[in-house]
């Protein structure tokens, strides 16, 4: 059975693309056949984050317009078998595709035998958002513990429900445990209280993500990264397994780190 999951947020810069890339890789590691679809036409990024930019020949708009077959546009990932990317067009804009065409595209991907189709939705609530959610069976909303991001997530959840995508799952991204402990950042309970949806996972703020993104290698495969661990847990939960939430206590700081901290202050 295949499932189309859209990763959305409303606000930009909260980590939709990073989440899409990591979930795609995480599912592929576990032997699933996964298609990542970049729906951000005109501002594509997923190919860069995946390190596949230089392999693009055809894109989503080419498929929709019939310039190529779906199979020709799918780029095989260089690390994981079973992971494919359908890149967005860069020299076009959101109007190049209609929700009906996206629906057809998702059907086509399901027929190709993918277990999961993950759609990276653009920021905003306009045409691009409508396109991205058109063919989805399920939605994952990404937010950060900031008032503005949570506000936008609330709006998005409302729009998703209005479009028949009920019970979206929430990923709380870039949580700073030190700030939460000092009471200077919203914690998980604060966010879930406002949004009243099930939480799929919490990803701590981690510089490994920045490094991985710039290198074009998703952090999910980094065993040392806490964010990578969080993404692996989320993948397990998507597959229907019960995984306890990882402890978000600050890890003990090494002597060397303490020393560095001393000099910083």
């Amino acid at each position: 059975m295949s499932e189309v999951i859209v990763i959305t947020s409303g606000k930009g810069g909260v980590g939709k693309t990073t989440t899409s890339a990591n979930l795609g890789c995480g599912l592929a590691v576990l032997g699933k056949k996964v298609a990542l679809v970049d729906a951000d036409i005109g501002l594509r990024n997923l190919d860069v984050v995946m390190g596949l930019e230089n392999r693009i020949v055809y894109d989503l708009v080419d498929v929709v317009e019939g310039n190529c077959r779906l199979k020709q546009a799918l780029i095989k990932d260089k690390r994981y078998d079973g992971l494919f990317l359908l890149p967005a067009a860069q020299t076009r804009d959101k109007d190049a595709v209609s929700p009906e065409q996206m629906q057809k595209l998702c059907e086509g991907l399901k027929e190709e035998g993918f277990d999961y189709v993950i759609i990276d939705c653009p920021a905003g609530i306009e045409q691009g958002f409508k396109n991205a959610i058109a063919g989805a069976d399920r939605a994952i909303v990404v937010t950060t513990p900031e008032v503005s991001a949570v506000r936008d997530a609330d709006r998005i959840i409302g729009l998703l429900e209005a479009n028949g995508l009920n019970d979206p799952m929430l990923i709380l991204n870039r949580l700073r445990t030190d700030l939460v402990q000092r009471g200077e950042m919203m914690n998980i309970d604060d966010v879930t209280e406002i949004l009243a949806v099930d939480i799929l996972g919490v990803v701590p703020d981690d510089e490994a993500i920045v490094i991985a993104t710039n290198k074009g290698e998703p952090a999910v495969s980094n065993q040392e990264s806490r964010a990578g661990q969080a993404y692996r847990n989320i993948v397990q939960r998507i597959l229907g397994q019960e995984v306890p939430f990882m402890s978000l206590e600050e890890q003990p700081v090494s002597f060397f780190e303490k020393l560095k901290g001393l000099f910083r202050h």
Partner: protein
Amino acid sequence: MNLENYVIFKGTKDGVTVLFQEDASFEVLCEQLEKKVQEAGKFFDNVKTSLAFKGRTFSDEEEQQLLRIITDHTTMEITFLKTENNELVELTALLEKEMAPQNLTKFHKGSLRNGQKIEFDGSVVIIGDINPGAEIKATGNIIILGQLKGMAHAGCQGMIEAFIAAIYMAPVQLRIGDIITRFPDENKRGSKPAEYAFVQEGQIFVMPLS
């Protein structure tokens, strides 16, 4: 020789209208048009006007053929073409395919940013950089007086002899004819000489220019 008036020229306030008889064959119309235009001779010379075809609908090829008859025999400068279905077609676009000389070169000053695209029937010279995510497509050669970091496609209609030259060559992808090559993943930094890319034995090679 048929003496009936199958083709009638009319001057209107919007420009020149050419009325075609509906029942005449296309060949006869062409013949008559040619004759009329020749007869009018210098009358249309150096006139800048829009043109309308009325009386019957033509296919794109037929339209082009009629236009060519007019442009071959006069120096009339046609700005717009109005057809029976009242579409205003910008003439340059319509005639570009037929009229563009093979060795036409487009010069572009300024850089191409992510998402910008230049497509041209002929060769292209860019004075500026091609950023990642930008595309440049030409049926002929491409010369970039700057950094090529995006995608360049020379000889895009199959001209395999086309080349791509750049002051700093670090493209995401290069294409010549129907051959596609991607550059090594590692980011090359630092200075290197200007290079050009060409096809030999079905492969794209990149060599220093000097």
